[in-house]
């Protein structure tokens, strides 16, 4: 990255600022590069650091959220909400019927497994079919070959992912959350 690229990048990261604020900041750093001298260009870039982080400091000073952070913050908030939802859901489910949940898991697994196996078969069939098509039209055959390979590849991926999470016949430990509530209930009863 050279000086022009650095300043350009900085300008892009500051695009939410008012024109006055942005040009003031840019002028400062243009001056800074000029006064440091052309020989020190790379040194200055290294010292100033990532233009986005530099921009974030200026944005924060202007009471704006960091440019890079906005998406990340949103994602983090969404992930947190999802996690809380999952936890609440699993607690409720466990306290209700752990066996029913296990059975549902196995049923879902079986359905997915059969579906993927079926897809794999279809994919392989299309590949074989495409091989017989080569004599009539190579373009069409190539298309079907690609399609077949794509489908069987996807099915294989799904199968391997499924086999990774094979439901084991072992008895699941009741999570401490469920047990705690039970204890609380008995304590209350006394």
């Amino acid at each position, binding site marked *: 990255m050279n000086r022009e690229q650095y300043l350009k990048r900085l300008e892009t990261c500051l695009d939410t600022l008012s024109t006055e604020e942005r040009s003031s900041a840019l002028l400062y750093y243009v*001056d800074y590069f000029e*006064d440091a001298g052309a020989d020190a260009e790379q040194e200055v870039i290294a010292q100033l650091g990532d233009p986005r982080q530099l921009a974030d400091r200026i944005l924060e000073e202007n009471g704006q959220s960091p440019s890079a952070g906005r998406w990340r913050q949103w994602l983090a908030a969404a992930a947190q909400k999802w996690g809380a939802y999952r936890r609440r859901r699993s607690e409720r489910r466990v306290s209700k019927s752990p066996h029913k949940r296990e059975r549902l898991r196995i049923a879902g697994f079986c359905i997915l497994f059969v579906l993927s196996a079926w897809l794999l078969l279809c994919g392989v069939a299309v590949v074989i079919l495409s091989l017989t098509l080569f004599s009539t039209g190579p373009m069409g055959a190539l298309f079907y070959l690609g399609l077949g390979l794509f489908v069987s590849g996807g099915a294989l991926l799904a199968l391997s992912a499924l086999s990774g999470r094979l439901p084991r016949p072992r008895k699941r430990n009741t999570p401490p959350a469920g047990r705690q509530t039970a204890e609380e209930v008995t304590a209350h009863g006394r």
Partner: protein
Amino acid sequence: MIFQTGAALLECCVLAVLDREDTYGYVLTQRVKGVLQISESTLYPVLRRLQKEASLSTYDRAFQGRNRRYYSITPQGREKLQQYRTEWEAYKNRIDDILLRGLCGDE
């Protein structure tokens, strides 16, 4: 340096440098860097903040075919610097008391 440099300390160093003479961003950064371990990217927001609260003013002066922006301390900035000096004296004495003279609180 193991002691962290907060925003206030940075502000008063900038004001103190500018109290001696007007100067531009690069030299200002080098002067402050000579005293405090700061990254080159920390100074602009401080300057801008001081400028907005009218502790600093700026003017452009032609230099080698371009305009260079100079920073200058205002009377308001001098007042602020004086407050910082008083505050620093008191703070320094309290820390010296406990750190160098072994005194504590009301002694």
